[in-house]
């Protein structure tokens, strides 16, 4: 019975942890199938500044990543975004990388753009000032 109790307790605690986290976009293991957040429609733009330059140039994501990863980036999955930013820094001649997700809800209402940036020299990471949260009861 102890094994059964522990197993069931984990099955309850793991999904509950989603509601205690500060990342509304990471819905893994929370049984949030077809959630409104999952249906946000986002356009992803990535830019980088090469060393010795001041202007940012757009990264052609389709030429760098598989389309499935671009889809994951557009869902504001922080671990993937962080990994992508570090991946670009590791190219060697980049001083700063930025990724911007411009999203809207299923109603078409625009949401606050989510901007992530990484300075390659110091590895200083900037994240959105305010993460998009599910709407609360009025």
């Amino acid at each position: 019975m102890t094994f059964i109790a522990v197993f069931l307790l984990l099955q309850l605690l793991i999904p509950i942890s989603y509601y205690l986290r500060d990342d509304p976009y990471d819905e893994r293991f929370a049984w949030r199938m077809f959630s409104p957040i999952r249906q946000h429609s986002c356009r992803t733009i990535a830019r980088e500044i090469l060393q010795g330059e001041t202007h940012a140039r757009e990264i052609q994501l389709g030429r760098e990543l598989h389309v499935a990863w671009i889809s994951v980036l557009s869902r504001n999955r922080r671990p993937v975004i962080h990994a992508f930013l570090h991946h670009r820094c590791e190219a060697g001649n980049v001083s700063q990388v930025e990724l911007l997700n411009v999203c809207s809800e299923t109603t078409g209402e625009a949401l606050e753009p989510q901007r992530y940036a990484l300075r390659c020299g110091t590895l200083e990471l900037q994240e959105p000032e305010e993460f998009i949260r599910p709407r609360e009861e009025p």
Partner: protein
Amino acid sequence: MKPLERYFFGDVDAIRPYLLQRGILLLLAFDSWLDLLPHGGRYGAGGFNVAHFGWLDAIAPTPTPGLYSGLIILVGLLALTQALIRPSKLMLFILCGLFTYGWSMSMLDSYQHHYLLSLVLFCVAFFPRLTSADLWPNPAERSAGGKQSADGEQSVGLRTISAWPYVLLGCTLSIVYLFTAVTKTSPDWREGSPLANLGRTALFQDLQSYFGDLGWSADVFWTRVATSTVLLQLGIFAGYLLASTQDRTERPWLRFLVWPWALLPLSFHAAVEQMDLQIGWFSAYVIVAAAVFFLPARLLRAITFSLTWLPRRSLDALSRWLENDEPESQSVSIGLALAVALVTALIVGATDLPGSVGASLVFAILIAAHGVRLAQRSTERLRAWLVGCALAGGCFWLALSQSEARFDYYRWMAGDLRRRQDYAGALEAYEKANRYAPPGKDRRAKEEEMRRRLEMP
């Protein structure tokens, strides 16, 4: 017995864990080969990957098409082998581990139902190791459909069994529906537009039109349907908790309550399947689970008996033929195991996919190693193991040759390489795709375009 102990260790009709275990394993085998395998080409593309867990990123290699594809081929082979013979707890745990690694190695696979499937496989590994011989032991009964045999013998097949892993799986499924209901209580969902976004199909358009004639505006329709899904999923949550207990003799009236309850999960997932969502084989798994948990045991026995009649008669005939032989010596048994391992490896390895040779080698080693172990214990179990493995290898070859899996694998790989301007890699992939292209679906134009870009004749 305390109430909780009675709940988990009370009687369950033996057909339920038997059918659920075999059904899930069969689905997993063909799901692996036909739905998961074609996506293998994207793993490690561009040298980029993020695993589901940070520690896995640290210790595991970056996935490659060969690693993922080989793993998935092996998952399918193991699943089908275990579905065809008396399952081995060790093999089922290995299967659970391999499948879990398959999705957790990369966030490319974020299907929540794959995580659920890992939990299901974990519970299934603890299931009673039943075969049809346990349910229908008398050969005459097996051919007469469970009735008294011709010479008057009464068979004593297994009717009920204590199956705490089965009840635990029911609780796990119940928890899933509880949290999906919680998700749907948010105002974002209940206002209806997310569901309207998903429900752009003929069925829902017809329903909307019907209720529109009754005076419901589109907004009202979608709001009410969205809210009703909360109640539906709470109903399914309660149903799974009750359904595990319907076979207990102390509450026979419970069956009449549970059987109609089957309409909730079955109709819900049938409607979901209408929605053209990218959810793989999720609906098939949950419909099988719902049917096994909710439907009457007699109906499940009748269906299973009918559907498996021919395979069981064939295997019974094979067993009788083999039993008439003198049991072979251990050295002959070992030789048989090695021969089956070699032939199966050749069949699997010849399917022309990255990772197929690796998977065939691992499977061959498994066949030989487990076969040698069984040769020292039981000739009957060895024969069953070898027949199961050979059939699994043959079914894999058939599944690939009769489907578009290889065409999809290579054309999707080619498309990605082309977008990333790896024209040489794309050309090679398009050539392979065209080798397996169904009539009228080839990518000859893309192949020619790659040749032009590479300035090849």
